[in-house]
Protein backbone atom coordinates (compact mmCIF):
# COMPACT_ATOMS: atom_id res chain seq x y z
CA UNK A 1 0.00 0.00 0.00
CA UNK A 2 2.68 2.45 1.12
CA UNK A 3 4.95 1.38 -1.71
CA UNK A 4 2.16 2.00 -4.16
CA UNK A 5 1.61 5.50 -2.80
CA UNK A 6 5.34 6.24 -2.96
CA UNK A 7 5.55 4.94 -6.51
CA UNK A 8 2.66 7.23 -7.49
CA UNK A 9 4.59 10.25 -6.33
CA UNK A 10 8.07 9.21 -7.46
CA UNK A 11 7.16 8.56 -11.10
CA UNK A 12 7.05 12.04 -12.65
CA UNK A 13 4.63 11.07 -15.40
CA UNK A 14 2.13 9.52 -12.97
CA UNK A 15 2.51 12.51 -10.69
CA UNK A 16 1.52 14.93 -13.43
CA UNK A 17 -1.44 12.83 -14.50
CA UNK A 18 -2.57 12.54 -10.88
CA UNK A 19 -2.35 16.30 -10.45
CA UNK A 20 -4.13 16.92 -13.76
CA UNK A 21 -7.04 14.61 -12.92
CA UNK A 22 -7.37 16.12 -9.44
CA UNK A 23 -7.55 19.65 -10.81
CA UNK A 24 -9.97 18.52 -13.51
CA UNK A 25 -12.28 17.01 -10.88
CA UNK A 26 -12.05 20.19 -8.83
CA UNK A 27 -12.84 22.47 -11.77
CA UNK A 28 -15.72 20.45 -13.15
CA UNK A 29 -17.18 19.96 -9.68
CA UNK A 30 -17.32 23.74 -9.22
CA UNK A 31 -18.78 24.49 -12.66
CA UNK A 32 -21.11 21.49 -12.37
CA UNK A 33 -22.67 22.99 -9.23
CA UNK A 34 -24.02 25.88 -11.26
CA UNK A 35 -25.39 23.68 -14.04
CA UNK A 36 -26.91 21.40 -11.39
CA UNK A 37 -28.72 24.31 -9.75
CA UNK A 38 -29.93 25.52 -13.14
CA UNK A 39 -31.33 22.00 -13.75
CA UNK A 40 -29.24 21.65 -16.89
CA UNK A 41 -27.17 18.71 -15.71
CA UNK A 42 -27.73 16.64 -18.83
CA UNK A 43 -26.41 19.43 -21.02
CA UNK A 44 -22.97 18.08 -20.15
CA UNK A 45 -23.89 14.78 -21.77
CA UNK A 46 -25.06 16.55 -24.94
CA UNK A 47 -21.90 18.65 -25.06
CA UNK A 48 -19.66 15.61 -24.66
CA UNK A 49 -21.26 13.68 -27.51
CA UNK A 50 -21.41 16.75 -29.72
CA UNK A 51 -17.67 17.21 -29.29
CA UNK A 52 -16.94 14.19 -31.51
CA UNK A 53 -17.49 15.87 -34.91
CA UNK A 54 -15.61 18.94 -33.69
CA UNK A 55 -12.59 16.89 -32.72
CA UNK A 56 -12.72 14.99 -36.02
CA UNK A 57 -12.91 18.18 -38.08
CA UNK A 58 -10.02 19.67 -36.10
CA UNK A 59 -8.00 16.56 -36.89
CA UNK A 60 -8.99 16.45 -40.57
CA UNK A 61 -8.00 20.08 -41.08
CA UNK A 62 -4.63 19.90 -39.40
CA UNK A 63 -3.65 16.19 -39.26
CA UNK A 64 -2.16 16.88 -35.83
CA UNK A 65 -3.15 15.39 -32.50
CA UNK A 66 -2.95 18.01 -29.82
CA UNK A 67 -5.12 18.53 -26.77
CA UNK A 68 -5.38 22.28 -27.31
CA UNK A 69 -6.59 21.93 -30.88
CA UNK A 70 -9.12 19.22 -29.97
CA UNK A 71 -10.35 21.45 -27.18
CA UNK A 72 -11.03 24.23 -29.68
CA UNK A 73 -12.89 21.84 -32.00
CA UNK A 74 -14.93 20.40 -29.17
CA UNK A 75 -15.75 23.90 -27.92
CA UNK A 76 -17.05 25.07 -31.30
CA UNK A 77 -19.08 21.91 -31.86
CA UNK A 78 -20.49 22.14 -28.33
CA UNK A 79 -21.63 25.72 -28.84
CA UNK A 80 -23.23 24.75 -32.16
CA UNK A 81 -25.03 21.85 -30.47
CA UNK A 82 -26.40 24.02 -27.68
CA UNK A 83 -27.64 26.58 -30.20
CA UNK A 84 -29.41 23.76 -32.06
CA UNK A 85 -31.04 22.48 -28.86
CA UNK A 86 -32.35 25.89 -27.88
CA UNK A 87 -33.53 26.62 -31.44
CA UNK A 88 -35.45 23.33 -31.66
CA UNK A 89 -37.06 23.61 -28.26
CA UNK A 90 -37.94 27.28 -28.74
CA UNK A 91 -39.40 27.17 -32.25
CA UNK A 92 -41.14 23.80 -32.34
CA UNK A 93 -43.34 21.80 -30.05
CA UNK A 94 -40.55 19.34 -29.30
CA UNK A 95 -39.65 19.39 -25.61
CA UNK A 96 -36.13 20.32 -24.48
CA UNK A 97 -35.26 16.78 -23.39
CA UNK A 98 -36.15 15.29 -26.77
CA UNK A 99 -34.31 18.16 -28.48
CA UNK A 100 -31.21 17.28 -26.46
CA UNK A 101 -31.54 13.64 -27.43
CA UNK A 102 -31.91 14.49 -31.12
CA UNK A 103 -28.94 16.86 -31.23
CA UNK A 104 -26.76 14.55 -29.13
CA UNK A 105 -27.28 11.51 -31.30
CA UNK A 106 -27.22 13.38 -34.61
CA UNK A 107 -23.91 15.08 -33.80
CA UNK A 108 -22.50 11.82 -32.49
CA UNK A 109 -23.70 9.96 -35.58
CA UNK A 110 -22.06 12.48 -37.89
CA UNK A 111 -18.94 12.31 -35.73
CA UNK A 112 -18.91 8.52 -36.00
CA UNK A 113 -19.11 8.77 -39.78
CA UNK A 114 -16.16 11.19 -39.78
CA UNK A 115 -14.13 9.09 -37.34
CA UNK A 116 -14.55 5.87 -39.30
CA UNK A 117 -13.88 7.76 -42.52
CA UNK A 118 -10.59 9.03 -41.06
CA UNK A 119 -9.69 5.58 -39.75
CA UNK A 120 -10.40 3.88 -43.07
CA UNK A 121 -8.53 6.50 -45.06
CA UNK A 122 -5.52 5.29 -43.05
CA UNK A 123 -3.50 8.47 -42.85
CA UNK A 124 -1.30 6.76 -40.29
CA UNK A 125 -1.30 9.48 -37.66
CA UNK A 126 -4.93 8.85 -36.76
CA UNK A 127 -4.16 6.09 -34.30
CA UNK A 128 -4.96 7.22 -30.79
CA UNK A 129 -7.81 9.46 -31.86
CA UNK A 130 -10.21 6.97 -30.32
CA UNK A 131 -8.07 6.85 -27.17
CA UNK A 132 -8.72 10.55 -26.84
CA UNK A 133 -12.44 10.03 -27.13
CA UNK A 134 -12.90 7.05 -24.88
CA UNK A 135 -10.69 8.35 -22.16
CA UNK A 136 -7.43 6.95 -20.90
CA UNK A 137 -5.60 9.39 -18.69
CA UNK A 138 -2.50 7.23 -18.79
CA UNK A 139 -2.24 7.89 -22.53
CA UNK A 140 -1.84 11.62 -21.95
CA UNK A 141 1.55 13.19 -22.58
CA UNK A 142 2.96 16.01 -20.50
CA UNK A 143 1.75 18.68 -22.94
CA UNK A 144 -1.82 17.40 -22.67
CA UNK A 145 -1.59 17.44 -18.88
CA UNK A 146 -0.45 21.08 -18.98
CA UNK A 147 -3.49 21.96 -21.10
CA UNK A 148 -5.74 20.03 -18.72
CA UNK A 149 -4.30 21.80 -15.68
CA UNK A 150 -4.38 25.23 -17.29
CA UNK A 151 -7.99 24.78 -18.33
CA UNK A 152 -9.05 23.53 -14.89
CA UNK A 153 -7.35 26.44 -13.13
CA UNK A 154 -8.99 28.85 -15.57
CA UNK A 155 -12.40 27.34 -14.79
CA UNK A 156 -11.92 27.68 -11.04
CA UNK A 157 -10.62 31.25 -11.23
CA UNK A 158 -13.43 32.41 -13.54
CA UNK A 159 -16.06 30.70 -11.40
CA UNK A 160 -14.72 32.53 -8.33
CA UNK A 161 -14.51 35.89 -10.12
CA UNK A 162 -18.07 35.64 -11.47
CA UNK A 163 -19.40 33.93 -8.34
CA UNK A 164 -21.97 36.61 -7.48
CA UNK A 165 -23.35 36.81 -11.02
CA UNK A 166 -23.52 33.04 -11.50
CA UNK A 167 -25.22 32.69 -8.14
CA UNK A 168 -27.94 35.11 -9.20
CA UNK A 169 -28.58 33.55 -12.60
CA UNK A 170 -28.69 30.09 -10.99
CA UNK A 171 -31.29 30.98 -8.40
CA UNK A 172 -33.31 33.84 -9.84
CA UNK A 173 -32.66 34.85 -13.45
CA UNK A 174 -35.69 37.16 -13.40
CA UNK A 175 -34.32 39.16 -10.49
CA UNK A 176 -30.87 39.24 -12.09
CA UNK A 177 -32.40 40.75 -15.21
CA UNK A 178 -34.34 43.20 -13.07
CA UNK A 179 -31.25 44.67 -11.43
CA UNK A 180 -29.65 45.11 -14.84
CA UNK A 181 -27.27 42.16 -15.13
CA UNK A 182 -26.60 40.98 -18.71
CA UNK A 183 -28.27 37.61 -18.07
CA UNK A 184 -28.05 36.37 -21.65
CA UNK A 185 -24.33 37.09 -21.80
CA UNK A 186 -23.69 35.47 -18.40
CA UNK A 187 -25.65 32.38 -19.39
CA UNK A 188 -23.49 32.09 -22.47
CA UNK A 189 -20.32 32.49 -20.41
CA UNK A 190 -21.46 29.74 -18.04
CA UNK A 191 -22.32 27.57 -21.02
CA UNK A 192 -18.89 28.08 -22.56
CA UNK A 193 -17.22 27.27 -19.25
CA UNK A 194 -19.29 24.07 -19.06
CA UNK A 195 -18.25 23.19 -22.59
CA UNK A 196 -14.60 23.78 -21.72
CA UNK A 197 -14.92 21.55 -18.65
CA UNK A 198 -16.50 18.79 -20.72
CA UNK A 199 -14.00 19.08 -23.57
CA UNK A 200 -11.11 18.90 -21.11
CA UNK A 201 -12.64 15.98 -19.25
CA UNK A 202 -13.26 13.82 -22.33
CA UNK A 203 -9.62 12.88 -22.60
CA UNK A 204 -9.46 11.71 -19.01
CA UNK A 205 -12.77 9.86 -18.63
CA UNK A 206 -14.31 9.49 -22.09
CA UNK A 207 -17.33 10.78 -23.98
CA UNK A 208 -20.06 8.94 -22.11
CA UNK A 209 -18.80 9.33 -18.58
CA UNK A 210 -17.65 12.94 -18.63
CA UNK A 211 -21.18 14.10 -17.79
CA UNK A 212 -20.80 12.44 -14.40
CA UNK A 213 -17.89 14.75 -13.50
CA UNK A 214 -20.31 17.66 -13.70
CA UNK A 215 -23.39 16.03 -12.14
CA UNK A 216 -22.39 13.58 -9.44
CA UNK A 217 -20.07 15.68 -7.21
CA UNK A 218 -22.50 18.61 -7.36
CA UNK A 219 -25.48 16.42 -6.48
CA UNK A 220 -23.52 14.88 -3.60
CA UNK A 221 -22.49 18.29 -2.32
CA UNK A 222 -26.09 19.51 -2.36
CA UNK A 223 -26.96 17.06 0.44
CA UNK A 224 -24.49 18.60 2.88
CA UNK A 225 -25.44 22.24 2.78
CA UNK A 226 -27.91 24.93 1.81
CA UNK A 227 -25.23 27.55 1.21
CA UNK A 228 -23.74 27.99 -2.25
CA UNK A 229 -20.10 28.74 -1.27
CA UNK A 230 -20.01 25.62 0.91
CA UNK A 231 -21.64 23.60 -1.86
CA UNK A 232 -19.06 24.77 -4.41
CA UNK A 233 -16.22 23.88 -2.05
CA UNK A 234 -17.72 20.46 -1.27
CA UNK A 235 -18.39 19.70 -4.94
CA UNK A 236 -14.82 20.71 -5.76
CA UNK A 237 -13.44 18.46 -3.03
CA UNK A 238 -15.64 15.51 -4.09
CA UNK A 239 -14.61 15.99 -7.72
CA UNK A 240 -10.94 16.25 -6.80
CA UNK A 241 -11.12 13.13 -4.62
CA UNK A 242 -12.76 11.13 -7.42
CA UNK A 243 -10.21 12.38 -9.95
CA UNK A 244 -7.35 11.40 -7.68
CA UNK A 245 -8.86 8.01 -6.94
CA UNK A 246 -9.45 7.34 -10.63
CA UNK A 247 -5.94 8.26 -11.69
CA UNK A 248 -4.31 6.44 -8.74
CA UNK A 249 -6.27 3.19 -8.95
CA UNK A 250 -5.86 2.93 -12.70
CA UNK A 251 -2.08 2.72 -12.22
CA UNK A 252 -2.57 -0.56 -10.35
CA UNK A 253 -3.16 -2.68 -13.41
CA UNK A 254 -2.88 -2.61 -17.18
CA UNK A 255 -6.57 -3.04 -17.90
CA UNK A 256 -8.06 -0.64 -15.37
CA UNK A 257 -9.46 2.39 -17.20
CA UNK A 258 -9.37 5.80 -15.50
CA UNK A 259 -12.83 7.02 -16.45
CA UNK A 260 -15.03 4.32 -14.90
CA UNK A 261 -13.00 4.29 -11.67
CA UNK A 262 -13.31 8.07 -11.38
CA UNK A 263 -17.05 7.91 -11.96
CA UNK A 264 -17.56 5.06 -9.52
CA UNK A 265 -15.58 6.93 -6.86
CA UNK A 266 -17.85 9.94 -7.40
CA UNK A 267 -20.93 7.70 -7.25
CA UNK A 268 -19.71 6.19 -3.98
CA UNK A 269 -19.33 9.68 -2.50
CA UNK A 270 -22.82 10.49 -3.75
CA UNK A 271 -24.30 7.35 -2.18
CA UNK A 272 -22.63 8.14 1.15
CA UNK A 273 -23.97 11.69 1.00
CA UNK A 274 -27.45 10.51 0.08
CA UNK A 275 -27.56 8.16 3.05
CA UNK A 276 -25.56 9.86 5.76
CA UNK A 277 -25.54 13.62 5.20
CA UNK A 278 -26.88 15.45 8.24
CA UNK A 279 -30.16 17.23 7.62
CA UNK A 280 -31.01 16.17 4.07
CA UNK A 281 -29.66 12.61 4.07
CA UNK A 282 -32.01 9.62 4.13
CA UNK A 283 -30.79 8.35 7.52
CA UNK A 284 -31.20 11.78 9.13
CA UNK A 285 -34.67 12.08 7.62
CA UNK A 286 -35.72 8.68 8.88
CA UNK A 287 -34.45 9.52 12.37
CA UNK A 288 -36.31 12.82 12.34
CA UNK A 289 -39.42 11.05 11.20
CA UNK A 290 -39.18 8.56 14.05
CA UNK A 291 -38.57 11.33 16.55
CA UNK A 292 -41.67 13.11 15.37
CA UNK A 293 -43.75 9.98 15.56
CA UNK A 294 -42.63 9.38 19.12
CA UNK A 295 -43.40 12.99 20.01
CA UNK A 296 -46.83 12.66 18.42
CA UNK A 297 -47.55 9.45 20.30
CA UNK A 298 -46.58 11.17 23.54
CA UNK A 299 -48.86 14.15 22.91
CA UNK A 300 -51.76 11.85 22.07
CA UNK A 301 -51.19 9.78 25.19
CA UNK A 302 -50.86 12.89 27.33
CA UNK A 303 -54.11 14.25 25.93
CA UNK A 304 -52.43 17.36 24.51
CA UNK A 305 -54.37 19.55 22.06
CA UNK A 306 -54.26 18.25 18.44
CA UNK A 307 -52.20 21.19 17.09
CA UNK A 308 -49.00 19.24 17.68
CA UNK A 309 -50.48 16.34 15.76
CA UNK A 310 -51.03 18.42 12.65
CA UNK A 311 -47.46 19.72 12.79
CA UNK A 312 -46.05 16.25 13.18
CA UNK A 313 -47.85 14.93 10.15
CA UNK A 314 -46.91 17.88 7.99
CA UNK A 315 -43.17 17.69 8.47
Amino acid sequence: MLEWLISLWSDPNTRWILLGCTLLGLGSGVIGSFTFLRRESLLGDTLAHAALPGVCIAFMLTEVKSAGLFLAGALLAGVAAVLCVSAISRHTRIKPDAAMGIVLTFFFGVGTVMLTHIQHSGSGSQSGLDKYLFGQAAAMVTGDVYVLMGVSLLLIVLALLLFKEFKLISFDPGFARGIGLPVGLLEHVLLILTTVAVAAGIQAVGVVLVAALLITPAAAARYWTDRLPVMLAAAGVFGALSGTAGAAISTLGEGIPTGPVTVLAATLLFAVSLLLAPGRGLAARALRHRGMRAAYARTVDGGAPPTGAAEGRES
Partner: protein
Amino acid sequence: MMDFWIILTAVLVAGACSILGCFLILRRMALVGDAISHAVLPGIAIAFLMSGTRDSMWMLLGATAFGLLTVFLIQTLQTAGLQSDASIGIVFTALFAVGVLLISLNAQHIDLDLDCVLFGEIAYVPWDTWTLGGTDMGPRAVWMLGITVTVILLLLGLFYKQFKLCAFDPAMAAACGIPVLLFHYLLMGMVSMTAVSSFESVGAILVVGMLIIPAATAYLLTDRLGVMIGLSVAVGVVSAVAGYLASYLLDASIAGCIVSVAGILFILSLLLSPKHGLIAKASRRRSAAGVL
Protein backbone atom coordinates in the same frame (compact mmCIF):
# COMPACT_ATOMS: atom_id res chain seq x y z
CA MET B 1 -26.85 -12.17 -49.07
CA MET B 2 -24.55 -10.30 -46.66
CA ASP B 3 -26.15 -7.00 -47.63
CA PHE B 4 -29.57 -8.51 -47.14
CA TRP B 5 -28.86 -9.58 -43.54
CA ILE B 6 -27.31 -6.24 -42.63
CA ILE B 7 -30.20 -4.27 -44.09
CA LEU B 8 -32.72 -6.59 -42.44
CA THR B 9 -31.02 -6.08 -39.06
CA ALA B 10 -30.98 -2.31 -39.53
CA VAL B 11 -34.64 -2.29 -40.55
CA LEU B 12 -35.62 -4.38 -37.52
CA VAL B 13 -33.68 -2.06 -35.18
CA ALA B 14 -35.29 0.96 -36.81
CA GLY B 15 -38.75 -0.57 -36.60
CA ALA B 16 -38.56 -1.58 -32.95
CA CYS B 17 -37.00 1.70 -31.86
CA SER B 18 -39.22 4.03 -33.83
CA ILE B 19 -42.44 2.47 -32.51
CA LEU B 20 -41.33 2.78 -28.88
CA GLY B 21 -39.83 6.21 -29.50
CA CYS B 22 -43.28 7.67 -30.15
CA PHE B 23 -44.39 6.77 -26.63
CA LEU B 24 -41.14 8.04 -25.09
CA ILE B 25 -41.50 11.41 -26.86
CA LEU B 26 -45.13 11.76 -25.81
CA ARG B 27 -44.36 10.87 -22.19
CA ARG B 28 -41.38 13.29 -22.19
CA MET B 29 -39.04 10.47 -21.34
CA ALA B 30 -36.64 10.75 -24.26
CA LEU B 31 -33.65 10.93 -21.96
CA VAL B 32 -34.78 7.94 -19.92
CA GLY B 33 -34.40 5.99 -23.16
CA ASP B 34 -30.87 7.39 -23.39
CA ALA B 35 -30.17 6.28 -19.83
CA ILE B 36 -31.55 2.77 -20.36
CA SER B 37 -29.55 2.16 -23.51
CA HIS B 38 -26.32 2.97 -21.66
CA ALA B 39 -27.22 1.25 -18.43
CA VAL B 40 -27.86 -2.18 -19.95
CA LEU B 41 -24.10 -2.53 -20.49
CA PRO B 42 -23.34 -4.12 -17.09
CA GLY B 43 -26.25 -6.51 -17.66
CA ILE B 44 -24.75 -7.60 -20.96
CA ALA B 45 -21.31 -7.95 -19.38
CA ILE B 46 -22.63 -10.00 -16.44
CA ALA B 47 -24.69 -12.22 -18.73
CA PHE B 48 -21.50 -12.82 -20.71
CA LEU B 49 -19.55 -13.73 -17.59
CA MET B 50 -22.23 -16.01 -16.17
CA SER B 51 -23.15 -17.93 -19.26
CA GLY B 52 -19.69 -17.76 -20.82
CA THR B 53 -21.17 -17.65 -24.29
CA ARG B 54 -23.09 -15.28 -26.46
CA ASP B 55 -26.24 -17.15 -25.57
CA SER B 56 -28.92 -14.71 -26.67
CA MET B 57 -31.73 -15.50 -24.26
CA TRP B 58 -29.53 -15.09 -21.18
CA MET B 59 -28.26 -11.81 -22.47
CA LEU B 60 -31.70 -10.57 -23.35
CA LEU B 61 -33.14 -11.39 -19.93
CA GLY B 62 -30.17 -10.27 -17.82
CA ALA B 63 -29.72 -6.99 -19.56
CA THR B 64 -33.43 -6.25 -19.71
CA ALA B 65 -33.47 -6.62 -15.93
CA PHE B 66 -30.76 -3.98 -15.72
CA GLY B 67 -32.83 -1.65 -17.86
CA LEU B 68 -35.71 -1.96 -15.41
CA LEU B 69 -33.30 -1.51 -12.50
CA THR B 70 -32.22 1.80 -14.09
CA VAL B 71 -35.78 3.03 -14.27
CA PHE B 72 -36.38 1.93 -10.68
CA LEU B 73 -33.22 3.67 -9.41
CA ILE B 74 -34.06 6.91 -11.24
CA GLN B 75 -37.54 6.79 -9.74
CA THR B 76 -36.16 6.10 -6.25
CA LEU B 77 -33.68 8.98 -6.38
CA GLN B 78 -36.46 11.27 -7.53
CA THR B 79 -38.71 10.29 -4.64
CA ALA B 80 -35.71 10.87 -2.35
CA GLY B 81 -35.80 14.49 -3.45
CA LEU B 82 -33.22 14.71 -6.24
CA GLN B 83 -34.15 16.63 -9.40
CA SER B 84 -34.92 14.41 -12.38
CA ASP B 85 -32.11 15.46 -14.75
CA ALA B 86 -29.46 14.82 -12.11
CA SER B 87 -30.93 11.47 -11.09
CA ILE B 88 -30.92 10.28 -14.71
CA GLY B 89 -27.33 11.45 -15.15
CA ILE B 90 -26.03 9.85 -11.96
CA VAL B 91 -27.69 6.48 -12.50
CA PHE B 92 -26.73 5.91 -16.09
CA THR B 93 -23.12 7.08 -15.78
CA ALA B 94 -22.63 4.88 -12.70
CA LEU B 95 -24.07 1.78 -14.39
CA PHE B 96 -22.18 2.43 -17.62
CA ALA B 97 -18.97 2.81 -15.60
CA VAL B 98 -19.62 -0.57 -13.94
CA GLY B 99 -20.12 -2.10 -17.38
CA VAL B 100 -16.94 -0.64 -18.87
CA LEU B 101 -14.97 -1.71 -15.82
CA LEU B 102 -16.34 -5.27 -15.95
CA ILE B 103 -15.49 -5.55 -19.64
CA SER B 104 -11.97 -4.17 -19.30
CA LEU B 105 -11.17 -6.30 -16.25
CA ASN B 106 -12.38 -9.49 -17.97
CA ALA B 107 -11.18 -8.62 -21.43
CA GLN B 108 -9.96 -12.17 -22.02
CA HIS B 109 -13.36 -13.67 -21.14
CA ILE B 110 -15.63 -11.17 -22.81
CA ASP B 111 -15.58 -11.04 -26.54
CA LEU B 112 -16.82 -7.47 -26.67
CA ASP B 113 -14.86 -4.51 -27.91
CA LEU B 114 -15.36 -1.12 -26.27
CA ASP B 115 -15.57 0.59 -29.64
CA CYS B 116 -18.35 -1.83 -30.48
CA VAL B 117 -20.16 -0.78 -27.31
CA LEU B 118 -20.38 2.75 -28.62
CA PHE B 119 -20.69 2.31 -32.36
CA GLY B 120 -21.93 -1.22 -32.83
CA GLU B 121 -20.65 -3.73 -35.34
CA ILE B 122 -23.58 -4.18 -37.66
CA ALA B 123 -21.22 -5.18 -40.47
CA TYR B 124 -20.33 -8.38 -38.58
CA VAL B 125 -23.94 -9.42 -38.02
CA PRO B 126 -24.10 -11.94 -40.91
CA TRP B 127 -21.10 -13.90 -39.59
CA ASP B 128 -22.40 -14.30 -36.09
CA THR B 129 -24.95 -16.99 -36.78
CA TRP B 130 -27.08 -19.11 -34.51
CA THR B 131 -27.00 -22.84 -34.94
CA LEU B 132 -29.75 -25.10 -33.69
CA GLY B 133 -29.15 -28.84 -33.75
CA GLY B 134 -26.36 -28.41 -36.28
CA THR B 135 -28.33 -26.40 -38.80
CA ASP B 136 -27.55 -22.79 -39.53
CA MET B 137 -30.56 -20.67 -38.58
CA GLY B 138 -29.27 -17.31 -39.79
CA PRO B 139 -27.74 -14.38 -37.90
CA ARG B 140 -28.30 -14.33 -34.15
CA ALA B 141 -28.99 -10.59 -34.09
CA VAL B 142 -31.86 -11.03 -36.53
CA TRP B 143 -33.43 -13.64 -34.24
CA MET B 144 -33.07 -11.47 -31.16
CA LEU B 145 -34.49 -8.45 -32.93
CA GLY B 146 -37.25 -10.54 -34.44
CA ILE B 147 -38.32 -11.74 -31.00
CA THR B 148 -38.20 -8.17 -29.69
CA VAL B 149 -40.30 -6.77 -32.53
CA THR B 150 -42.83 -9.58 -32.08
CA VAL B 151 -43.13 -8.86 -28.36
CA ILE B 152 -43.57 -5.14 -29.02
CA LEU B 153 -46.23 -5.68 -31.69
CA LEU B 154 -48.04 -8.20 -29.52
CA LEU B 155 -48.11 -6.01 -26.39
CA LEU B 156 -48.99 -2.83 -28.25
CA GLY B 157 -51.62 -4.64 -30.29
CA LEU B 158 -53.28 -6.04 -27.18
CA PHE B 159 -53.08 -2.91 -25.03
CA TYR B 160 -52.96 -0.08 -27.58
CA LYS B 161 -55.78 1.87 -25.93
CA GLN B 162 -54.18 1.63 -22.50
CA PHE B 163 -50.74 2.68 -23.71
CA LYS B 164 -52.27 5.59 -25.60
CA LEU B 165 -54.18 6.86 -22.59
CA CYS B 166 -51.13 6.49 -20.33
CA ALA B 167 -49.03 8.45 -22.85
CA PHE B 168 -51.37 11.41 -23.07
CA ASP B 169 -53.06 11.61 -19.70
CA PRO B 170 -51.73 9.33 -16.95
CA ALA B 171 -54.05 10.86 -14.35
CA MET B 172 -57.11 10.13 -16.47
CA ALA B 173 -55.80 6.62 -17.13
CA ALA B 174 -55.43 6.02 -13.40
CA ALA B 175 -58.95 7.34 -12.85
CA CYS B 176 -60.25 4.85 -15.45
CA GLY B 177 -58.68 2.04 -13.43
CA ILE B 178 -55.75 1.33 -15.73
CA PRO B 179 -52.67 0.18 -13.77
CA VAL B 180 -50.49 3.08 -14.96
CA LEU B 181 -47.36 1.93 -13.14
CA LEU B 182 -47.59 -1.53 -14.69
CA PHE B 183 -47.84 -0.07 -18.19
CA HIS B 184 -44.98 2.31 -17.39
CA TYR B 185 -42.75 -0.62 -16.50
CA LEU B 186 -44.00 -2.65 -19.49
CA LEU B 187 -42.99 0.21 -21.79
CA MET B 188 -39.63 0.54 -20.07
CA GLY B 189 -39.15 -3.22 -20.27
CA MET B 190 -39.74 -3.10 -24.02
CA VAL B 191 -37.28 -0.20 -24.35
CA SER B 192 -34.67 -2.17 -22.41
CA MET B 193 -35.25 -5.26 -24.52
CA THR B 194 -34.86 -3.21 -27.69
CA ALA B 195 -31.73 -1.52 -26.35
CA VAL B 196 -30.18 -4.90 -25.54
CA SER B 197 -31.00 -6.59 -28.80
CA SER B 198 -29.88 -3.59 -30.87
CA PHE B 199 -26.82 -3.02 -28.73
CA GLU B 200 -24.35 -5.13 -30.64
CA SER B 201 -25.56 -4.00 -34.03
CA VAL B 202 -25.76 -0.25 -33.58
CA GLY B 203 -24.15 0.50 -30.21
CA ALA B 204 -25.38 2.29 -27.13
CA ILE B 205 -25.58 5.81 -28.46
CA LEU B 206 -27.07 5.17 -31.85
CA VAL B 207 -29.92 3.15 -30.30
CA VAL B 208 -30.92 6.42 -28.69
CA GLY B 209 -30.82 8.11 -32.07
CA MET B 210 -33.17 5.54 -33.54
CA LEU B 211 -35.43 5.83 -30.48
CA ILE B 212 -35.77 9.59 -30.58
CA ILE B 213 -35.11 11.00 -34.05
CA PRO B 214 -37.72 9.15 -36.21
CA ALA B 215 -40.38 9.64 -33.55
CA ALA B 216 -39.59 13.35 -33.24
CA THR B 217 -39.71 13.69 -37.04
CA ALA B 218 -43.15 12.08 -37.10
CA TYR B 219 -44.26 14.23 -34.16
CA LEU B 220 -43.71 17.32 -36.31
CA LEU B 221 -45.78 15.91 -39.15
CA THR B 222 -49.01 14.76 -37.55
CA ASP B 223 -51.32 15.12 -34.55
CA ARG B 224 -52.65 11.56 -34.55
CA LEU B 225 -50.89 8.79 -32.62
CA GLY B 226 -51.62 6.03 -35.14
CA VAL B 227 -50.32 8.12 -38.04
CA MET B 228 -47.34 9.18 -35.94
CA ILE B 229 -46.31 5.57 -35.31
CA GLY B 230 -46.65 4.75 -39.00
CA LEU B 231 -44.64 7.77 -40.12
CA SER B 232 -42.02 7.11 -37.46
CA VAL B 233 -41.51 3.55 -38.68
CA ALA B 234 -41.33 4.82 -42.27
CA VAL B 235 -38.66 7.38 -41.35
CA GLY B 236 -36.74 4.72 -39.43
CA VAL B 237 -36.82 2.23 -42.29
CA VAL B 238 -35.89 4.82 -44.92
CA SER B 239 -32.94 5.96 -42.76
CA ALA B 240 -31.83 2.37 -42.31
CA VAL B 241 -31.77 1.61 -46.03
CA ALA B 242 -30.43 4.99 -47.17
CA GLY B 243 -27.87 4.98 -44.37
CA TYR B 244 -26.56 1.62 -45.47
CA LEU B 245 -26.13 2.88 -49.03
CA ALA B 246 -24.46 6.09 -47.79
CA SER B 247 -22.01 4.12 -45.67
CA TYR B 248 -21.07 2.15 -48.77
CA LEU B 249 -20.30 5.35 -50.67
CA LEU B 250 -18.44 7.09 -47.83
CA ASP B 251 -16.63 4.01 -46.53
CA ALA B 252 -17.74 4.87 -43.00
CA SER B 253 -19.62 3.42 -40.03
CA ILE B 254 -23.02 2.01 -41.03
CA ALA B 255 -24.71 2.89 -37.75
CA GLY B 256 -23.32 6.42 -37.89
CA CYS B 257 -24.65 6.89 -41.42
CA ILE B 258 -28.10 5.59 -40.47
CA VAL B 259 -28.42 8.10 -37.63
CA SER B 260 -27.06 10.89 -39.83
CA VAL B 261 -29.68 10.16 -42.49
CA ALA B 262 -32.38 10.13 -39.80
CA GLY B 263 -31.07 13.48 -38.58
CA ILE B 264 -31.25 14.91 -42.09
CA LEU B 265 -34.83 13.69 -42.43
CA PHE B 266 -35.58 15.38 -39.12
CA ILE B 267 -34.11 18.68 -40.34
CA LEU B 268 -36.21 18.41 -43.52
CA SER B 269 -39.42 17.90 -41.60
CA LEU B 270 -38.41 20.66 -39.17
CA LEU B 271 -38.20 23.06 -42.09
CA LEU B 272 -40.91 21.77 -44.40
CA SER B 273 -43.65 20.25 -42.25
CA PRO B 274 -46.97 21.74 -43.43
CA LYS B 275 -48.27 22.46 -39.93
CA HIS B 276 -45.38 22.63 -37.48
CA GLY B 277 -42.51 23.42 -39.88
CA LEU B 278 -40.45 26.58 -39.53
CA ILE B 279 -41.20 27.78 -43.08
CA ALA B 280 -44.94 27.23 -42.71
CA LYS B 281 -44.89 29.03 -39.37
CA ALA B 282 -42.97 31.97 -40.78
CA SER B 283 -45.31 32.35 -43.75
CA ARG B 284 -48.34 32.11 -41.44
CA ARG B 285 -46.86 34.86 -39.31
CA ARG B 286 -46.25 36.99 -42.38
CA SER B 287 -49.79 36.57 -43.68
CA ALA B 288 -51.12 37.40 -40.22
CA ALA B 289 -49.03 40.57 -40.27
CA GLY B 290 -50.42 41.37 -43.74
CA VAL B 291 -53.97 41.15 -42.42
CA LEU B 292 -53.16 43.64 -39.70
